[in-house]
């Protein structure tokens, strides 16, 4: 086991399947024999609030359920406003994986708070950290609704980036999503790996 472990923040808004993502990932790392702690911070998620999951795997017992700002290896985010909330938590060599999807904030929708003057994607691009940005609009597919399955797309992307066994990961997807969604999920997963292959080569 060369990789001694990582601290990951998984972020997004209610309904994006963040808990499924962290659940699938946890199954994977458990199989590899890692110790894990996963802490879910759920706002009023069902109603458009932010959701964040602190995901830690390690070859030693994990102590704190929360990752300290500055100790985050990866921010994996499904919504770009939420991505912005965690940029400062990354290590210097930490990496951002984010969707450009945006669920506008109610406080801005209703005029109670100012919108950010700048494009959020641009702010993310300017970050000194390494980043991988997926625009779901560029990857629409007739086989599944990418806006609902970004979580599994991202899982494929992440697995490719880490050079993990896709067979193992797909097996975990198979075992953990309801029967009738398995095929769609696997397609989404493969789409994620393909986007990653393209980008990783480009970089």
């Amino acid at each position: 086991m060369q990789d001694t472990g990582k601290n990951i923040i998984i972020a997004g808004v209610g309904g994006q399947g963040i808990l499924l993502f962290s659940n699938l990932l946890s199954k994977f790392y458990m199989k590899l024999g890692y110790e894990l702690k996963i802490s879910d911070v759920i706002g009023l998620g069902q109603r458009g609030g932010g959701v964040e999951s602190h995901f830690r795997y390690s070859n030693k017992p994990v102590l704190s359920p929360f990752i300290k700002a500055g100790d985050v290896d990866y921010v994996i985010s499904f919504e770009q406003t939420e991505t912005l909330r965690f940029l400062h938590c990354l290590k210097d060599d930490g990496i951002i994986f984010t969707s450009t999807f945006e669920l506008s904030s109610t406080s801005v929708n209703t005029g109670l708070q100012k919108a950010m003057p700048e494009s959020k994607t641009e702010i993310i691009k300017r970050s000194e950290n390494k980043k991988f940005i997926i625009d779901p609009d560029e990857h629409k597919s007739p086989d599944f609704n990418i806006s609902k399955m970004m979580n599994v797309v991202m899982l494929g992307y992440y697995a490719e980036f880490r050079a993990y066994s896709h067979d193992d990961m797909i097996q975990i997807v198979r075992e953990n999503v309801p029967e009738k969604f398995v095929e769609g999920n696997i397609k989404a997963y493969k789409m994620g790996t393909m986007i990653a292959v393209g980008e990783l080569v480009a970089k």
Partner: protein
Amino acid sequence: MKMMNGNEAVARGAFEAGVKVAAGFPGTPSTEVMDYTQHRYPDIYCEWSTNEKVGLEVAIGASFAGYRSLAIMKTVGLHVAADALGGAAGSQINGGLVLVVGDDVGRIAGDDYNDVRHYGNMFNIPVLEPSDSQEAKDLMVRAFEISEEYSTPVILKITSVTCKTTGRVLIDEDYAYEVKCREKYPVSFSKVIMTTIMMKAKGSEHPKLTKCFNDFPAHMKRLAEDSNDFDINKLELNGKKIGVITAGTPYYYVKEVLPEASVLKLGLVMPLPEKMIRELAQHVEKLYVIEDGHDILEKNIKDLGISVIGKELFPKFPEMTRFTPDIIEEKLVPGAPKRTPQEGVPFRLPVSCAGCSHLFISQILRKHKIKAAADVTCGLIGCFPHMESYSLQKCMGSSIALAHGYNIAKDHKENFVAMIGDGGFWATGINGLMNLIFNDSQSTVIIVDNSCLAMTGGQNVASSEFGFNYKAENKLDIAKVCEAIGVKDIVTVDAYEFKNLEESILNAVNAKTNSVVIVKKPCVTKFKLPKDTPSYIDQDLCSKCRKCINVGCLAIESKRKNGSVEIVINEDICTGCGLCSTVCHTEAIKN
């Protein structure tokens, strides 16, 4: 070995403790303790009671019958059940009696500036606090043993962090459930009876007197003494510079941020192991208390005459009620780097699910400027500044009595309306209704019958058509109960019939009598109601008045597109309920 979150682990602990009865009322973060217990361990009788007080009383009765019993609630729920706990505290316990109470520290999702440990101090009963899932399971079993050994109810404090953190739990896969029964005491009375007997009959050994008497202060003294040897309190003597007394998840923050520190980790946070604390105090130069919630350990330790540093360094309330590793590092690790978050990232005000019946009611109240009180329900979104449908909102079940109080004070010159959920109604709101009837008041009550406790995830209520112990013949009928109570004017309407609903509410408000409007529509999220074709906004007609946004529906967004702002409906979220089109004066919203 299994991965479990704190709630799952507590349920497993209940199973391994041989619990027979679990009763309670939902509340974040501990609701799932009951769900897991009911789903996984069918040997245990489970019920969602009408409210926490009833739930705890059920558990107390079962405990007197000799069986290990469990009451589940959040800390605000224990406020409701506090009288029942006061009755049980200090009395004879047959089957272990444990309350699992969730503190929503940090207000991650809830409404809490509460700390359940106050009840430990007030009623002189033990409180246990786990730091992770493994301990949640183990302490659960321990709690029952302590309850029986020291004849006392025991509180297991869990928090939003322990409840929602998943970690490894070692379990005995082959464990076979074994119900525990212990009928030690023939009677069990509240302290009033015991103290009366004690005062009248000093020195008498007559069994008729002694059987009623439970020397509870002595039990607690013995527990405090014994706790110095409990393995659930761990004294880790390391460096001499810094000592920390801690409990719960902050223990792990301390271990990570201050690996050199000497630490006393309390599993039993009340009563305190005095000897251990003194030993640590002598070992270190500086002694800190790091505890989530209020400064309770700190005060209790100071009461022992031991000086510790707590809130003077880590200001509590209202600045901080939940620790993070970052806070500890900032204060106790010199030169720790400071990280500043991105500026100006907007926050998210809560909104309702698309198609929610509450939005229809909020909209009608706002449209007609009807003053109203909201209860604790999904509908309280209508209190937020983007909606402004309600002007008064307090605790669960309160809105009916709040409105009654307002109306009598104003000599019924206004009709201040109460909105309440079906859950809030059965919980305690029904008392408010009985009260206003027999006190000859006139008020209008809107009961939102969505067939569940929606805000906590859709648990059953007395009028639901599902639930742990559901039988059609036992389902309570809101309209019939209101009628029996004596409400003069009762109508039932479908939330989606906007005109009809509007008229019904206006009629009720204007009638000079007491009235109930029952608004029926199953919670769209819990019951996954089928969706209609989503609505869309014709951008050529939209005047950007933003009225539709203030309807409070999750599906309506304002989006920047090519430099200008568009109001759009998210078609993945919209249910096509049509509410937003009722507010659009340019008829831009189409279906």
